[in-house]
């Protein structure tokens, strides 16, 4: 590849990634050379500026037609734009959380690393959203995973953090290996790693033998990625890792990392398996024929997440299981393909809701646990009397997580249900499991509200809220209510900017 071809690429399409990359490098150099006594906390503002700039440049790219550069390994299509926006919003909120993070033993010299590791992980996720090629997809996935392994263990003198980090590395390593193994079969069957080419080859594949191998590949990729989104039965790592990781990292894993997992899942499934025939006659496409596997995993995830959450006393573990359950709800949308009409809308909106409500919850957990040094649900006791505004914000997030009308969580669930019912025959069993899971989730979500409003005050210490966290709390609360009452703001934005995501689905 000579210089001219390099220059002829439309590098502008990668602007957000470049900005994040530049910020990361600048941060790491600053961290290295600035004197030790200099407070690294300020670096968070630098990182936040980078994210905001990346966000702005992304918005300026909205008007671009679909661009693909580097021989189609990097695609900026509507899918990439839409999900990158969510990733950047989530990352910005989490950086604000990380700015205020103050563990008991202090972060000391690691605080600088803390921020730029977030950014590298984010970069990985962003590359995943716009990769048109299995190799870039995998590189993005690894960049995200490796950074988050370190992030989980960043409190290196803490035993539980070490345990969590170790578990995460081993589980993550296994899952990556399985994914890669599955991908190698796909490569073997199609002879290419470019998603577009693979999709064309696979669409013509009616040979039963090859389809069998394709099924194997599908199965392994799905299993491998299920680790990433923490879907049952591959969810075991999540509670332990969330518990040991610093709270902003737990928020990161449950929001950004999970979102990236769904992004890669959708990229691979929609571009490869949606066009591939499911049998020798090609009457059904591959995904439709095999959606029973996704559906059963979704059902299992919902049941396990919600039922086990009932018994949790540790806040982070509880929300780990709650986020497992939410992954299950999202998988329902994947399994039903949104009924054919609602898939990407549904998932995008649900992830938006999930970003807002879950980061909000983790912000509250971070505040309370750093004050009291405990993560037991009893730290919530009496919060309603002690700091009513904090309690109100927390209530909004919880109601949204429980899917109560007036919040984003409700509209998100409604969207998923529409997708399950619209087809003939409807996915009634799956919908039944989902609604039953929602009712079960009332028990533990409202159990938290009982702590807040009905129990006597746990400790008289006034909850001091740093400005960073309060911004997160306010944005999340307002967003949750606003998009819950007027979801059309989000839907219209989505449809105006990205239409039906036609350039993502059809061109590949």
């Amino acid at each position, binding site marked *: 590849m000579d210089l001219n071809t390099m220059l002829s690429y439309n590098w502008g399409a990668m602007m957000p990634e470049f900005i994040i990359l530049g910020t990361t490098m600048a941060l790491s150099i600053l961290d290295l050379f600035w004197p030790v006594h200099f407070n690294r906390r300020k670096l968070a503002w630098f990182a936040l500026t980078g994210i905001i700039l990346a966000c702005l440049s992304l918005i300026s790219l909205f008007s671009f037609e679909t661009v693909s550069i580097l021989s189609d390994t990097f695609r900026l299509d509507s899918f990439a734009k839409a999900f990158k926006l969510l990733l950047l919003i989530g990352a910005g909120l989490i950086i604000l959380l990380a700015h205020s993070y103050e563990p008991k033993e202090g972060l000391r010299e690691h605080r600088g690393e803390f921020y730029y590791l977030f950014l590298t992980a984010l970069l990985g996720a962003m590359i995943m959203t716009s990769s048109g090629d299995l190799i870039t997809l995998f590189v993005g996935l690894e960049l995200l995973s490796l950074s988050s392994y370190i992030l989980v263990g960043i409190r290196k003198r803490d035993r539980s953090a070490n345990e969590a980090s170790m578990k995460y590395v081993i589980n993550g390593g296994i899952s990556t290996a399985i994914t890669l193994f599955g991908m190698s079969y796909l490569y073997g069957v199609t002879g290419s790693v470019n998603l577009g080419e693979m999709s064309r080859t696979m669409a013509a594949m009616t040979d039963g033998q090859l389809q069998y191998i394709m099924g194997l590949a599908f199965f392994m990729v799905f299993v491998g990625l299920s680790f990433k989104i923490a879907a049952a039965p591959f969810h075991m790592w999540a509670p332990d890792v969330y518990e040991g990781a610093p709270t902003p990292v737990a928020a990161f894993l449950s929001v950004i990392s999970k979102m990236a997992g769904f992004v890669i899942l959708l990229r691979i499934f929609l571009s490869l398996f949606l066009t591939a025939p499911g049998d020798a006659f090609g009457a059904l496409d591959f995904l439709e024929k095999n959606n029973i596997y996704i559906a059963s995993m979704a059902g299992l995830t919902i049941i396990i997440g919600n039922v086990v959450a009932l018994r949790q006393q540790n806040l982070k573990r509880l929300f780990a299981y709650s986020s497992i359950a939410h992954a299950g709800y999202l998988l329902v949308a994947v399994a039903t393909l949104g*009924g054919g*009409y*609602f898939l990407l*809308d549904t998932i995008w909106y649900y992830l938006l809701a999930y970003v807002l409500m879950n980061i909000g919850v983790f912000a509250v957990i971070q505040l309370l646990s750093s004050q009291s040094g405990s993560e037991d649900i009893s730290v919530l006791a009496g919060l*309603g009397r002690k700091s009513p505004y904090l309690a109100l914000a927390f209530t909004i997030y919880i*109601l949204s997580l429980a899917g*109560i*009308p*007036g919040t984003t969580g*409700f*509209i998100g669930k*409604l*969207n998923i*249900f*529409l*997708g*399950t*019912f*619209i*087809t*003939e*025959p*409807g996915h009634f069993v799956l*919908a*039944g499991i989902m*609604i*039953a899971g*929602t*009712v079960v989730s*009332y*028990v533990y979500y*409202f159990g938290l*509200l*009982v702590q807040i*409003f*009905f129990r006597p005050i746990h400790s008289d210490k006034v909850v001091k809220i740093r400005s960073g966290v309060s911004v997160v709390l306010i944005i999340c609360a307002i967003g949750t209510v606003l998009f819950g009452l*007027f*979801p*059309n703001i989000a*839907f*219209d934005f989505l*449809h105006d900017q990205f*239409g*039906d995501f036609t350039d993502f689905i059809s061109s590949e």
Partner: protein
Amino acid sequence: MNAYLLSLLVFSPLLGILMVALMPKNEERTIKQFGFFGTLPPLFLSFFLCSQHYSGVALSSFNIKLDWIRFGNLEMYDPKLFTVNFELGLDGLSLIFILLTTIISSLAAMASIYIKQGWKGYYLLFLILEIGMLGVFTAENLILFFIFFEMTLIPAFFLIGRWGFLEREKASYHFLIYNGIGSAILLVAILILFARTGTTNIAALTQMMTMGGVSLFAPISSSMKYGLCLAFVIAFAIKLPVFPFHSWMVRVHAEAPPAIVMIHAGVLLKIGAYGIIRFGMGIFPEQYKSLAFGIVLMGVISFLYGALLALVQTDFKLVLAYSSISHMGIVMMGLGALNEAGLQGAIFQVISHGLIAAMLFFLVGALTERSGTVMLPKLGGLAKSMPVFSGFMLACGLASLGLPGMSGFISEFMVFLGLFKSQPVLAAISVIGLVLTAVYILRAVMLMTFGKNDSLVEKEKLDLEGWEFIPALVLLGLILLIGVFPNLLGGPLQGTIEAMMLALGGR
């Protein structure tokens, strides 16, 4: 102006919410006043609507419709597809329920003077609850209905769990889970309809389900229609509640603060009846007809079961709770009768029981305030120490057992009139319940008001006083008024009932 009147009515408690929210939380007196004043705008607006109706303005002129949510991007098929509008509307049936809501809310806000702590949170939740109730009765599409429906659930959960009696948390959990299951069933039914037809507008759905419309997507088979109708009936039967689904409601009646039970028994349970009429009967008349026998059977069972259990309770609140189940049984019987008398009787019974239950629980609240207990064995001789109170209690009890001249009589009479026409055997069996009702009410009232007086000191001035006469007199007045001039209710209802009868192929 007319177009915005209805949304103004529904959201007018926001004014009170704002006022209460701005008060510091220790200002007990002011918060209570503001909380009460917060219920007045909807009250007056509902009176205004009512007067407009009587002066000949068509109720449909108050309807409002604004664009709200559009799911999916299916404009190329039909711009209306998968849209949910913000649409409120009014007909005779909803007008009656709105009036019931605003009147009972104001009186319950008054009765909330007995609340001892946490006034600010209490009144905020109370007013949110009122918005929810008003919304439920005016919503013109199912999604909006569901949103308001849930909006009543959450505040009620907190009101019961925080301000109730000893076992309040357990009661609020039961309330939440049972109602959660009910609304889950409701939501599934609503969304199946929405997904398969692309609309949730009640009028449009009624037309599609009865006349049959073209479906762009998967069709709704006739067996699915039965399923949906059954789902609606069961979801609202849990809310009402009738026999197998009643246990949560007994706890709520016993443990919630009396002012909230006034709302709960007076209005919230009635959403169940409203829902069955609007959705079960309204959208699926064909299917509803074939479920009628089951509905009557459920009604008869809860009528007799509630009455029998009320007979042996020692806690007066439990007597009232089982009496509510029993009376809701009458509603179900009327709804299953499938004729004009039955339906009208059921609606009358809903309103009448709303008023009577609110009054009884107001009296329970007043008594609890004075004696600290409403256990029947501990009470007695109240006729001496509290003669006026006892008088109201007796009058209300008589209304509840259906004494002619009071609202309870009209409704029960009409229900039985209808039921004897369509299901004579079940009707004959259930007549026993009327006797039981008289027995348990008179037993409870007698145990309280007569007998030896060993709990309350005779000399102390304990009777109702001052403001306490207002709720008691207003409610008793309304009960008598409906008893004497039932056509006050019958008039506005005429149109709705005729339309229902037409759809049911009236008899």
